[in-house]
């Protein structure tokens, strides 16, 4: 399901969503829905928030949110909120600030944020903040650019960015840019194309994107493309995959690269899709 979201969002950013038969995709997605309302990664598997958001995002791309029983999906999601405001990923109870983002983003797309306790959810995310300004999986967890995207994205959607120390977090995030122009996700790590999305979207949401060298980052991403078969890899010369292709293209979209649709940094969907969700009734 995540693969479907990565591939299809990339196609939409490239203006080529019609390359696939939308009915076939939608039928498959609906076969992945569990009786609880949540979606599984594939037919016959167990549901999880990870796949529920991807399923809803793909339906939004195709302007087919109306095939969903939105209340049923929203009940599945709000049922996973815990007493302290955190979210479990599924019925087995693993807690992670990523799951808070999945729940908040998904309920926002479904216009059902009122089904959860937003205040408690925001406070839990704020409790995952570290001395370096970043965020971890749970309170006291190490800062990681992927977790930071989730926490900042969730705070942005709920209008709670005042919980972020923007200069401090911006400082940590801009220190992710290495000599080659690429971004890493944690100190001392190699750069990886996927952080072009996670670091960059966070910097945009906190209005500090001018703290990195954008031209060098564009060059780094372009260097990761396999010009023979089109895909993008984590680093130059590595094997390509749909995950890094999406994050490369989404990063280039945030960098206003010509020929790509604009992407919304919080909902991780093309801006025209987000506008359709929120401004067209």
């Amino acid at each position, binding site marked *: 399901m995540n693969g479907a979201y990565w591939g299809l969002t990339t196609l939409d950013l490239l203006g080529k969503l019609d390359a696939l038969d939308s009915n076939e995709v939608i039928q498959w997605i609906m076969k992945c829905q569990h009786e609880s309302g949540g979606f599984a990664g594939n037919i016959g598997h*167990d549901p999880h928030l990870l796949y529920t958001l991807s399923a809803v995002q793909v339906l939004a791309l195709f302007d087919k949110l109306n095939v969903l029983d939105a209340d049923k999906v929203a009940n599945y999601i709000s049922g996973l909120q815990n007493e302290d405001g955190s979210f479990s990923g599924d019925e*087995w109870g693993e807690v992670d600030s990523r799951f808070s983002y999945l729940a908040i983003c998904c309920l926002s797309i479904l216009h059902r944020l009122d089904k959860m306790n937003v205040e408690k959810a925001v406070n839990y995310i704020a409790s995952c903040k570290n001395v370096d300004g970043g965020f971890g999986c*749970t309170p006291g967890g190490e800062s990681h650019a992927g977790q930071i995207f989730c926490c900042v994205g969730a705070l942005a959607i709920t209008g709670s960015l005042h919980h972020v*120390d923007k*200069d401090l977090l911006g400082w940590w995030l801009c220190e992710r840019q290495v000599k080659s122009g690429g971004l890493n996700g944690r100190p001392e790590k190699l750069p990886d194309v996927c952080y072009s999305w996670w670091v960059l979207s966070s910097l945009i949401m906190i209005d500090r994107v001018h703290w990195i060298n954008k031209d060098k980052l564009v060059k780094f991403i372009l260097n990761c493309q396999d010009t023979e078969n089109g895909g993008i890899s984590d680093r130059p010369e590595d094997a390509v995959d749909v995950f890094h292709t999406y994050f490369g293209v989404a990063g280039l979209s945030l960098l206003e690269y010509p020929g790509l649709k604009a992407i919304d940094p919080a909902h991780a969907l093309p801006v025209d899709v987000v506008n359709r969700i929120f401004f067209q009734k």
Partner: protein
Amino acid sequence: MNLSSFWSLIPLIDEVGFIHPSQFVTLNKEATSSLKHEDANFWSRDHKLAISTDVLLPLYNAAKDAFMHAISQYKRHGNLSDASGYASNLESEAMKHSKALLLLSCDFGTAWNFRKLIVSKKQKIMLFLDELLLSALVLSYSPKSEKSWCHRRWVIKMIAGKCSTLQDIAGKESELVEKIAERSKMNYRAWNHRCWLVSYMTTEQVLHELKKSRNWAGLHVADNSCFHYRTRLMLRIMEEHCHKLEDGTSDENNEIYQIWQEELDWIEALIKRYVGREALWLHRRFLSLSWIRHFTTTLGDTSNYRAYNDFEDFQAQAMYSATYILWLTKQISDSQGIELPEKPNLGSLETMLNMACPERSFLWDILTRITGKCDEVLKENNC
């Protein structure tokens, strides 16, 4: 693909790996023992199992089909209570297949979930502990497997309160993370698990962990996760200390003062020995900031503030040391209204940064300006 030779090997192993067929020749030469398993696709000895990469895909497909079939059978009939043992037979079949599948596909969530379902129905400590063994086996071939780490946390949450050996388990878990971190560098999932364990540790354990992980950290100075783990441990110690001060059960800072002092001395020595390591400088940011926040006001002693002016020739070291001072200046002015005993000269820091890393001059300009702005605010407030 015939799964039976694979199953027959599984109960005996404690480590599994995937190898290229050409490596079998070497393994077979070395293995003179009769324990060797005679099969072109598997090799097993001393409880280690190697699987040929040639056979992985068909083996995975067979294991997946067998598991999916077994759980659909179980879901259809498994809840029947019958004396013939039909239901329990279905259950053990599905458990067997889930295990085989997880040894080939570490993040197959539906298989992990099925095991959780069965084990939680039985509520036997031994069965829960068996799940820790299976998860360790999966981690032996896939040390970053998120679902395997998650399965361990589920087990620990399930037995917490039921099991008198919980502290022993927390200690053993911590050892497992260290063993895996040795083979798999900068493993976020592994270290995140260790950070999570801290809330299950006693104060003595936390102090012991702090002592024990120091050697490891000193040998892995680029592994930021280990330094973050020390941050986590130190913050827990600080938290308990602050509670004691509030309760009035303690009124002295000596012990905690000493812990911070030792850590600051140690990190300074490491920074001098290993030039230009980002993780060391970031740990120092944390230590110095919390030192100034907690001890300058309570002890009125700023003599231990460690501004690092000993610039090395190496560019990275110069850059990290200059951003260290900038960062600290900004943070202190921002939060506490504490003035640094020795004001850094922002202009000369910017010059230093431009010399060390001229291609980022736009950033040094921004960072110096926001630090300068904080400093201004501080001056105004003090007037």
